[in-house]
């Protein structure tokens, strides 16, 4: 039986899976838009409590990690393994940095007693409870996806180092890159919705 690789088919499969991921977050966006509509002032005020500087830094971190991801694939296609590994490592490090900053933000909020079902949060208005409920759910689900992405990219790094991913066979890296870019895109929407709403 001929087993030639259908790289386009493989890519289509990855894209279709990404569509399902978009809809997964889509459900949360439905909730967000509904609750924001019903509690506009509370959402606006609660957003001021989030650390805009850290949020912006995290946005730039993910954007740059996407650049590094794209460059890593670019260089593997050129057969330049050194640069490919370098940029893949950079992607990983930036990903870890993102999670680190998120951890700092979360622990700060939790330290202030602002987490789901905390006594402090429950004394605040319903709009605040919903804002934080959505904040933790959405950034939490996103963070989980970042973590999964880091695991996948680490595996890719090993495969690149072993030469199993090279200029003749790089579709796994390309597909992992697609996943990583989606994680970036989701944050591109989460960031303004939680940190920047006017």
């Amino acid at each position: 039986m001929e087993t030639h690789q259908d790289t386009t088919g493989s890519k289509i499969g990855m894209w279709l899976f990404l569509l399902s991921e978009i809809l997964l977050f889509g459900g949360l966006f439905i909730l967000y838009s509904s609750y924001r509509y019903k509690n506009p002032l509370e959402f606006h005020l609660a957003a001021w409590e989030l650390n805009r500087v850290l949020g912006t830094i995290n946005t730039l971190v993910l954007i740059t990690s996407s650049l590094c991801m794209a460059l890593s694939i670019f260089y593997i296609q050129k057969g330049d393994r050194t640069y490919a590994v370098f940029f893949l490592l950079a992607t990983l490090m930036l990903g870890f940095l993102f999670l680190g900053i998120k951890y700092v933000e979360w622990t700060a909020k939790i330290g202030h007693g602002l987490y789901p079902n905390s006594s402090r949060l429950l004394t605040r208005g319903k709009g605040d409870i919903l804002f934080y409920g959505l904040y933790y759910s959405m950034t939490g689900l996103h963070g989980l996806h970042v973590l999964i992405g880091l695991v996948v990219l680490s595996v890719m790094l090993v495969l690149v180092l072993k030469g199993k991913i090279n200029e003749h066979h790089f579709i796994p890296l390309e597909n992992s890159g697609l996943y990583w870019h989606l994680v970036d895109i989701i944050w591109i929407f989460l960031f303004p919705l939680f940190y920047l709403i006017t």
Partner: protein
Amino acid sequence: METDVKELPVEKRNHQTYILVWLGLVLLTGITVSMAGMKVGRLGIAIVLLVAAIKSGLVLCYFMHLKYETGLLFKLMIPIVLAALTIFIGLTFTDIAFR
């Protein structure tokens, strides 16, 4: 968005496009962040979402190579998912906003 543009073979490409896209993304980020401080009222969320959409478009077209993919399926994927989200949010709003 034309998706029939053929990407150059990898030997002829350089990393310039990627750097330019990255600069665009950073710039757009700067724009939205600075807007957050300004008083733009209710138009604000529309502009902020528009900028997010443009940034996503850049990531989709260039980092994810969607601009260079051929075939109807690739061209339709993002419109299909946007249609689904619009319908889901839109029809839910016929309830939420009109009770």
